[in-house]
């Protein structure tokens, strides 16, 4: 089992070596990059908005219920909600959700291209399929995931505020003050650093699983499932490592 893991790891790094090669045509790669931004990034906005709004709302309700004490001002509920969304919910939970949506999309689309010989067709033309198909996906993910997470942070804070106000759980003015109280900009750097690492994990691991599919449609589905599991493990593991390194 361990030798299988190391063989897989070696294959993954060799794959990355093939991905980061000089493009045959920068213009075509850029065209592909913008297609991927639309496909992987823009199409994820509604999902991120929906999840973030309700995530913020739930976080406010849970925090308000647990800090329901006359000696704890509403300001601290706002602080807790802000830190929760900024440090963990927006970067990590949204990345896990994107691993399911974007990661499985990358894995299955590349797997389908492999089993239908579209990658062979690229290779015969003299185009490096690993680079042409994967590099724009990695680039689009690295660029757009942080934008999605920033979006998620604002939507989460908005959802938290609206829930607190509508359900009369907090004093809205005091709660809002908590959003700004002792705000540390470094936490934004931490959140975005995590997001960039997760974006690379999602796009490269899912691509690796899809790229080496052998067989037919059933194997494409299996590869997609394996990719989501591997991405989830990796995200949780790197979440711990980055938190330890950046916040200790």
């Amino acid at each position: 089992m361990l030798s299988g893991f190391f063989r897989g790891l070696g294959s993954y790094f060799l794959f990355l070596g093939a991905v980061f090669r000089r493009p045959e045509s920068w213009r075509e790669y850029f065209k592909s990059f913008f297609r991927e931004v639309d496909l992987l990034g823009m199409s994820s906005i509604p999902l991120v908005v929906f999840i973030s709004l309700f995530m913020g709302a739930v976080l406010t309700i849970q925090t308000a219920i647990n800090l329901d004490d006359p000696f704890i001002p509403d300001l601290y509920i706002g602080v807790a909600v802000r830190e929760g969304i900024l440090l963990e919910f927006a970067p990590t939970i949204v990345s896990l959700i994107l691993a399911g949506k974007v990661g499985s999309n990358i894995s299955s689309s590349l797997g389908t291209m492999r089993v239908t010989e579209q990658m062979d067709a690229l290779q015969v033309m003299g185009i490096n399929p690993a680079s042409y198909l994967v590099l724009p996906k990695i680039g689009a993910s690295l660029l757009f995931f942080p934008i999605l997470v920033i979006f998620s942070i604002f939507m989460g804070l908005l959802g938290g505020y609206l829930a607190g106000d509508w359900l009369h759980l907090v004093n809205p003015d005091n709660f809002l003050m908590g959003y700004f109280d002792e705000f540390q900009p470094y936490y934004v750097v931490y959140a975005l650093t995590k997001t960039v690492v997760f974006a690379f994990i999602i796009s490269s691991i899912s691509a690796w699983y899809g790229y080496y599919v052998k067989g037919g449609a059933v194997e494409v589905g299996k590869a997609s499932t394996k990719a989501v599991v591997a991405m989830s493990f990796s995200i949780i593991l790197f979440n711990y490592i980055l938190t330890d390194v950046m916040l200790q």
Partner: protein
Amino acid sequence: MIEVRGIKKAFGDQEVLKGIDMDLKPGQCNLIIGSSGSGKTVMLKSIVGLIQPDAGQVLLDGRDWTAMKERDRKVLRQEMGMVFQGSALFTSLSVEDNVRFPLDFFSTMSASEKDQRVAFCLDRVRIPQSALAKNPAELSGGMQKRVAIARAIVLNPKYLFCDEPNSGLDPETSIVIDQLIQEITHEFGMTTVVNTHDMNSVLEIGDHVVLMRHGYKVWEGAGPDILQSTDQEVVDYVFRSALFKKVRAALK
């Protein structure tokens, strides 16, 4: 001329190609035939460089393709076009964009010149204007094969490779595809290599035929001459083929 010299390939313990030599003639339809498992697909993929052979050489007009560095291979690949068994059209692109794709990558043509070239190739394979904006999945199998041929010839290649171009097609459409490949080969003076197990193709378009069996070359010659061969393995293959099965059935 494509010269194949002593090509060997094994997958694990299984030896698929056992030292094959063949000369594939310029400006002709060269057919590699054989039953399933004879090694003809591995042979074709070794010639186009999708599989690296364990030993032997492939010479493309005297240039040692197997020993070339990847950078030089990329340049030479622009002289190749290939039609895959399942067409391998890009499903994310329209029919027109599929054919334009190699031009966008490798041609220095202006946009209008590219338009003209794409229109010419699609017209040559008789794809109607109404199909240009469609997704390849919306086309019939025969039309997909014709679009694949158009994409393969758009860079005006010297070598055209076709892996079982009649696979999954009805007999009538198979004949149309065969004729198209033959016409294009002679019209543009390409060296065409077709992988097939269809005896109709052998008799219709086989300018030069190589029969493979169990990883060996069994017979080589002009298409119709295969019927005159007295070699037992050749006779067995021809007699077992679908065409003759039907003839035998009809004669009963």
